[in-house]
């Protein structure tokens, strides 16, 4: 059944979009991620303009992280004080990201920046994840305990001033890296249409030493708020949020995530990380391919202004 997407301005098969929502939802539930870094590229690959894909996926991530955040809230696994600190700069990052997004679109280089950023981000993160999980796998093969590497309990981050205590996470850290991380995630999320969970969780663990008990729940709160505000800002400035596309994706995503979560629980953590790493790396390569290979059509059209 074809439906017409009002903002993307093209007809699509409703079952294709719903299926994509289900598939990405399944993967996001399985790995405990938002799935934006898969959803946005998938939409771009089926022909939705990159700008519309990015702007619309933000609301999809807001929905899936809200579902996640609620369940972590019930388990009391959210450090609200830390989340608030991250948010104070996260919103600023989102606003900066939306502003740069508008600017890049104006000079016709948005698609390029989205493509390049995806290549850099996804191949790097993917390669690191693959390396880390292969090493963990090898260690278990040798019969050693698969311990998470925790280098010296203090690093340079802990030498910074403006220290604050976050009771629930039981950490005492400077506010500067907290703000820095919040800003970075908000900024990247708004430009690339990703929640940034797959970057945020490692950052919180390695830089701030946030314990595993609160790290995912807290990261979901940041994702939720930055993505919901990105939706509002993209809608208010660029008018590119396709509510109908978002609705179908969200419904598919919320359902798919439940089945994914069940499958994920039956798999070993290292195996999951390896799979996720391969997936992230593959999407990065796909973008690289897109940039390097000569496109079939060199020309494209963009509306500057109507009457």
């Amino acid at each position, binding site marked *: 059944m074809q439906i017409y997407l009002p903002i993307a301005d093209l007809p699509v098969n409703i079952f294709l979009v719903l299926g994509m929502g289900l598939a990405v939802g399944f993967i996001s539930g399985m790995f405990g991620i938002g799935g934006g870094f898969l959803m946005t590229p998938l939409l771009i690959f089926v022909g939705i303009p990159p700008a519309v894909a990015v702007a619309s996926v933000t609301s999809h991530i807001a*929905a899936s992280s809200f579902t996640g955040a609620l369940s972590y809230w019930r388990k009391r696994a959210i450090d609200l004080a830390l989340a608030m600190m991250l948010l104070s700069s996260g919103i600023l990052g989102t606003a900066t990201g939306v502003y740069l997004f508008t600017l890049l679109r104006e000079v016709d280089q948005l698609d390029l920046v989205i493509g390049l950023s995806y290549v850099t981000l996804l191949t790097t993160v993917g390669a690191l994840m693959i390396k880390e999980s292969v090493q963990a796998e090898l260690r278990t093969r040798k019969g050693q305990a698969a311990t998470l590497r925790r280098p010296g309990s203090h690093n340079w981050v802990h030498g910074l001033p403006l220290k604050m205590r976050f009771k629930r996470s039981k950490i005492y850290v400077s506010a500067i890296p907290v703000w820095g991380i919040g800003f970075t995630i908000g900024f990247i999320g708004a430009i690339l249409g990703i929640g940034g969970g797959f970057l945020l969780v490692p950052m919180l663990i390695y830089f701030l030493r946030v314990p595993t008990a609160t790290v995912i729940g807290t990261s979901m709160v940041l994702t939720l708020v930055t993505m919901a505000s990105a939706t509002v800002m993209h809608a208010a400035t660029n008018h590119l949020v396709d509510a109908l596309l978002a609705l179908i994706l969200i419904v598919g995503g919320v359902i798919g995530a439940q089945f994914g979560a069940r499958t994920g629980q039956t798999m070993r953590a290292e195996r999951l990380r390896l799979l996720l790493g391969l997936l992230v790396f593959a999407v990065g390569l796909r973008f690289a391919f897109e940039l390097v290979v000569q496109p079939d059509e060199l020309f494209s059209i*963009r509306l500057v202004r109507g009457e």
Partner: protein
Amino acid sequence: MARRALLIATLLTAFAAPAHAEQLVVSLSNHRVAVTSNFDGEDLVLFGTIEPDRPQSAMRGTYDLVVTVTGPRHTLRTRRKDRVLGIWVNADTREFVRVPSYLGILSNRPVNEIANAETARRLQLGLNNFLLPQAIGPDTADTVRDDPFRTAFVKLETQYGLYRESPIAVTFLTPTVFRVAIPMPANAPTGSYGIDVQLFGGGQPLARTQTALEVIKAGIEQFIADAARDYGLLYGILTSLMALVIGWIGSVVFRRD
């Protein structure tokens, strides 16, 4: 899909003809076309008659008709990718200023058979002759026909179904009664469309008349598009709320703890 049976509702004669000349009378079934989401490119029909300036028995040859339909004007930027440091980037752009968002050039046979090159250019017959001004510095001007940007622009618009040239869209039911099928794709922009009907005989322009139609979009999709454009902030807040509500429903329905 010709489910839209078009009935002659109003008659329009806009052409004030000089004495002893052919007169064109055209009628559009419906001046408002509602494009809905499941609209898959229907034809709108225009009927018309030619009133000859002399008895039919003495009529000169046969008539030819070229109908140019232009949608609301807008400004577009055409971009060309070039290889820079091994990757393909938008390197060059041209702005097409106030060009029709929809352009249909419909005739009963190829325009180059209807009139000679000079006439065709003067009367903007065919996609090749239609003026598509580009911004060149502070001025605007149409470029040569084989300009790569112009060619690419027309090609892309044709692929989207928005620009089209059809030498079979006009059919003569009798030597003086004609029927024009105006293709309306689902992505046809809303707004008012001008219809310019030009009559030719023996390669010479004989008569000309204009009419108009209004394309409106109905249904939820158009409501969304209008809201997104006119009330961006409110629209964004509502979309966010929708996401949160569905997320919340998801967490309630699938609650596992």
